[in-house]
């Protein structure tokens, strides 16, 4: 890496905004923070006195908890504002919310919202740093980064790998961030799934579309299954979950076409037996629990980098 590289982002809104050098730097920083989580006292004073607000408009135990743990391990003060049980955000526009939060003078807002672009809208109206914890079907950058970190740890590299992402690409912000992230880092990304769930122009994000799951998975180093939502049957995008499982589910037979040492990933929560065979999800090739562990490290790195350590 260039010796005079400096990380200069105030917000983390999407991997589309980050360069390959930025991503590599975040991954290295995250790697250095992993050690903290292994200590007996899992806490460093780095962000003491900083205020982090978790602003979650969509329910998400996993991501919210991961950010909260990350912030607490860095000694930041954290506050949770959620959809239910909170008087905030009721009938308030995002811009109103931003102005109200700004009055509390936070250093960082972590936002999860059902609308694409909401994190950017918040960032435009508040002096604090903003981390996008998932906005609609746009991006989920911290998930993309933790997936990159997980692959790098397991494979020793990202460049030159073949990554297959299978499932509902249209509605998956995780898929979008991963396609952008893996292709930026030099991996070859193939996607497959029901054609109704492959969005137009996904190639321009860096993916090759394969007509069958087997083609996408052929010789893959990494196979990622995406969560399929039950609602997709009504849209109508899917005939049934049974048909999905039969033709697009990741099974041992499908994995036979991947490299012998291919790893299996899933952003969770898993519909076992639908998009991923339970034996694979809990089997030796699964790195799904590594993803969870790395989530905390990556989020610690992001909080550290955008709020400055000093």
């Amino acid at each position, binding site marked *: 890496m260039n010796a005079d590289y400096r990380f200069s982002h105030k917000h983390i809104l999407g991997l589309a905004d980050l360069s390959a050098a930025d991503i590599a730097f975040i991954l290295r920083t995250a790697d250095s923070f992993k050690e903290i989580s292994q200590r007996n006292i899992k806490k460093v004073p780095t962000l003491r006195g900083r205020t982090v607000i978790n602003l979650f408009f969509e329910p998400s135990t996993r991501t919210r908890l991961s950010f909260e743990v990350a912030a607490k391990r860095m000694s930041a003060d954290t506050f949770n504002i959620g959809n239910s049980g909170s008087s905030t955000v009721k009938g308030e*526009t*995002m811009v109103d919310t931003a102005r109200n939060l700004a009055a509390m003078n936070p250093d960082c807002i972590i936002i999860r919202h059902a609308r*694409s*672009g909401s994190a*950017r809208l918040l960032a435009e109206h508040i002096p604090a740093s903003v981390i996008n914890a998932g906005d*609609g079907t746009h991006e989920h950058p911290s998930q993309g980064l933790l997936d990159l970190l997980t692959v790098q740890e397991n494979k020793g590299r990202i460049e030159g790998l073949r990554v297959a992402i299978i499932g509902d690409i249209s509605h998956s912000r995780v898929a979008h961030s991963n396609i952008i992230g893996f292709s930026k880092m030099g991996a070859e990304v193939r996607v497959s799934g029901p054609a109704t769930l492959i969005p*137009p122009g996904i*190639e*321009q*994000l860096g993916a090759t579309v394969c007509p069958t799951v087997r083609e996408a998975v052929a010789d893959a180093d990494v196979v990622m299954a995406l969560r399929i939502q039950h609602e997709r049957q009504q849209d109508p995008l899917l005939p049934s979950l049974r048909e999905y499982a039969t033709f697009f589910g990741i099974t041992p037979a499908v994995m036979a076409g991947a490299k012998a040492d291919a790893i299996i990933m899933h952003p969770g929560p898993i519909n076992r037996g639908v998009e991923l065979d339970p034996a694979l999800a809990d089997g030796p090739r699964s790195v799904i629990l590594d993803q969870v562990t790395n989530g905390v490290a990556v989020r610690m790195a992001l909080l550290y980098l955008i709020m400055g350590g000093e």
Partner: protein
Amino acid sequence: MEARCLINGRLIDPRRGLDGLGGVWLEEGRIKAVFAGPAPAAIPAGVPRIDLGGRWLVPGLIDIHVHLREPGDEHKETIASGALAAAAGGFTAVACMPNTRPVNDCEAVTALIMARAQGAATRIYPVGAISRGSDGESLAPFGEMRRGGAVAVSDDGRPVGNSQLMRRALEYAGNHDLLVISHPEESSLSHHGAMNEGALATRLGLRGIPRVAEEIMVYRDLALAEYTGRPIHIAHVSTREAVDLIRRAKARGGRVTAETAPHYFTLTEEAVGDYDTRAKMNPPLRTADDLAAIRQGLADGTLDAIATDHAPHSALEKEVEFDLAANGIIGLETSVPLTLALVREGVISPARMIELLAANPARILGVSGGTLQEEAPADLTVIDPELSFTYQAETVVSKSRNSPFLGWDLQGRAVLTILAGRATFEAPGQTLWR
């Protein structure tokens, strides 16, 4: 009322075949004489001369597709404020779409609009709804709305989803000499869409509106018009295939007219950038290929008119997440400069521009104007094609500011607008009207 004589203008009136030095003598709010070359000696010396110094002198411009928001959303625009914005853009007449609150679907609402239009800075031609409440279910009373002052019918803002209802509307409009205006959108394809479908929408995670949503409905409505033998007008054409469908229908002798808006020949979907809600409208901004086809359609006569689809919205509707933001942009004050850019680029001639902005709009709606006719009301526009200005929020005349062109350096504008012999607008810094 006093008389005036506009001299030394570039007189452009395509319907009369005029494009050259000349002027107009106004008296009692009417056109007394139109002359080529210098003012005739017959004009008394006492009539004040206004030397246009070569600026364009054209029939008052007519915008056949605007949303004035009154009644119901007067915080966005009123008939009075919208007419002032129109005058500032060089227009002397506008046709206002019926999607007000309540919808203009009966004579009472049409009459209310006509009453509020008294004394407005432009003529106001109401467009009545095709269906009651524009709900697409049953026909609105065309005859009564016509009696109240409506010149056309449309459910604009929404498509008429039911093909049988559209067919009946075309048939029944014939009894009342009303034009049917189609808002072409197959909503089962466009539903929940926020921008043009494609790679950019995918990158932004926004639900797309595919081009076929427009093209299928353009085809259906052309087919219904041909089948019923009735004329139809296609609103806000935005795709290449829609232009081609209209071109083919015209070649077969179909009684079809069509309009596009300045944003469709000026901007592409790239203007959405990072969720800029000022670039959100319906139909959405499309691609460079569509833009080229729209320009071609304007040049070759496939598209008959430029209409702004002026759609005022307050910050409340626009300072929100992109897919929650209201559709539409204001356009009355930028139509002339954006169209002049096409003239400068050699896409259309000055005469064609006036056809698109005055002569054809009058012909499509079947209203007076669009040409300089002796004894007709003196509705005139003076355009300075060179005058440069920056389009700024502080100087916008409309009540709303939702324009993607704010901050643009524009060249050319209407500098003087005359309605029935009275100046309704003179651009800042101009001193022509004395």
